[in-house]
C-alpha cells in the first residue's frame, strides 16, 4: 500500500472527514468573501454600461455564476453519490446529500435572475427556450433527489436510492437538453441570445470570472459545513470523541 492509498481511505471515516472539512472551510470561505466583494465592486461600478442592454446586463454577473454552479453541482453530486454507492462509502454519500440543497438554490436563483434579466431585455419574464426549460427541469431533478432522500428513514437506503436517482438523472440531462432544443427549433423558438453568446469585453469578462470563482469557493465552503452537520447528525457516536468544540 502506498502512502497515497492510506491517505485516501483515512477520510472515508466520517470522524476524519469531519475534521478535514472543518480545517478546509476557512480556506474557502475567506477567499470566497474577498472575491465576492471584488466581483460585486467590479460588476456594479467599474464595468462599463452595455451599448445594447444598458445597465440591465449587470444581472449576468449573478445569473451566469448561479446557472453554472447549478449545473456543475449536479454532476458533482452524481459523482459523489455513485462513489458512495459503489464503494459503500458513507462519507461520499453524505457529500452528495450536502450538495443537493446548494445546487437547488443556485438553480432557482438562475431561473429567477434569468427572469429579471429577460423582462427588460427580451420584454418577457419567461421564455420557453432550450436553456431556460432545461434549467427548470434541472431544478425538478434536484427537488426529486431531495424529496426522495427525505422520504426514506433508513440513511443507507436513502444514500443508495439517491445514488440511483442521481445517476439516472445525470445520464438523462444531455438527452433532455437535446430533446428540448429539438422541440424549441421545431416550434421556431426565440432566436434571441443573451449577451453571453457574443464575445465579451475584458472589462466585463473579468468581473464575471471573479463572480464564478467566488460562487464556486462559496459552494465548497457551504457544502463542507453542511457535511459536518450531517456527519454530526448521523454519526453521533463516532464524532463525539472527535468533536472538540
Amino acid at each position: 500500500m502506498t502512502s497515497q492509498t492510506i491517505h485516501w481511505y483515512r477520510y472515508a471515516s466520517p470522524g476524519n472527514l469531519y475534521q478535514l472539512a472543518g480545517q478546509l472551510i476557512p480556506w474557502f470561505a475567506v477567499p470566497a468573501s474577498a472575491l465576492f466583494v471584488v466581483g460585486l465592486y467590479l460588476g456594479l461600478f467599474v464595468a462599463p454600461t452595455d451599448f445594447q442592454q444598458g445597465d440591465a446586463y449587470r444581472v449576468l454577473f449573478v445569473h451566469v455564476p448561479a446557472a453554472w454552479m447549478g449545473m456543475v453541482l449536479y454532476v458533482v453530486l452524481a459523482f459523489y453519490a455513485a462513489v458512495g454507492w459503489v464503494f459503500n462509502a458513507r462519507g461520499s454519500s453524505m457529500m452528495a446529500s450536502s450538495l443537493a440543497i446548494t445546487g437547488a438554490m443556485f438553480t432557482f436563483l438562475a431561473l429567477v435572475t434569468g427572469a429579471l434579466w429577460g423582462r427588460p431585455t427580451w420584454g418577457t419574464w419567461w421564455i420557453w427556450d432550450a436553456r431556460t426549460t432545461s434549467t427548470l427541469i434541472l431544478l425538478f431533478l434536484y427537488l426529486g433527489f431531495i424529496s426522495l432522500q427525505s422520504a426514506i428513514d433508513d440513511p443507507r437506503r436513502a444514500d443508495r436510492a439517491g445514488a440511483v436517482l442521481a445517476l439516472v438523472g445525470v445520464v438523462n440531462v444531455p438527452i433532455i437538453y437535446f430533446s428540448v432544443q429539438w422541440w424549441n427549433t421545431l416550434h421556431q423558438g426565440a432566436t434571441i441570445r443573451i449577451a453571453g453568446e457574443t464575445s465579451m469585453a475584458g472589462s466585463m469578462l473579468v468581473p464575471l470570472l471573479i463572480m464564478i470563482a467566488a460562487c464556486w469557493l462559496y459552494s465548497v465552503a457551504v457544502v463542507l459545513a453542511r457535511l459536518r452537520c450531517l456527519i454530526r447528525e448521523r454519526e453521533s457516536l463516532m464524532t463525539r470523541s472527535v468533536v472538540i468544540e
Partner: protein
Amino acid sequence: MKPMSSAATLRWLVWREGTLAWRRRSDVLGTLFFFVMVVSLFPLSVGPERPLLRSIAPGVVWVAALLASMLSLNRLFAEDHADGTLEQMLLTPHPIYVIVLGKAIAQWLVSAVPLILMAPLLGVQFGLSVDAPFVLMASLTLGTPVVLLIGSIGAALTLGLRGAGTLTSLLVMPLYIPTLIFGAGSAQAVLVGSSPAANLRLLTAMLILTAIFAPWAAAAALRISLE
C-alpha cells in the same frame, strides 16, 4: 426440476401478471377511464373551437397517457411487495432484470394497450384526421413502454414509502420529457404537414436504450429498497 430459462420466466411472468390484472379488471379499466376523462376535460376548459382542439390534441392525448401510465406504476411492485411475493421472486435464481422486464411488459399489455387503441378515437374527437390519429397511435405504442420502464425505476426506488405514488410521479416526470417531446411532436409534425419519421425514429431509439438500461436500474433500485 430444471430451472426455467429467462425466456420462459418472462412468458410465465407476463401470463401471471395478466391473469392477476384480469381478476382486478376494475383497476385496469380505471386507468383507461382516467385517460378518457382527462382528455375530455380539455375541450371543456379551452372551448370547442376545432382549430384550437386540433392543435392541442397530440399534446393533450400524450399528457393524459403519461398521467394514466403513472397511475398504473404502483401496480408494478407495491402489491407484490405488500404480500411478500416480491421478496420471494427476488430469492429465485432468475435475474431481477428479467423479473422487472416481465412485469413491465405485462403492465404495458394490460394498461397501455387499451390507451393506445383508444387514442385515435379521442384524436378524431379533437378533429384529427387522415394520418394524424395513426401517427399518434404509433407514437404511443413506442412511447408507453418507455414510460413504464422509466416509471419502474421510480416505483422501485419508492417501494414501501409513505406517499410513494406522488413521490414516484415527481421523480419520473422530468425523465419523461424527451419521450413526451418526441411523442407529441410526431403527431404535431403531421398537423403541420411535415414527416413524423424523425420523431418516430428518435422514439424507437429511446425505446431500445430504455429497454436495455431501465430494467437494470430498476433491479438495482429494488435490491436497495428491499435490503
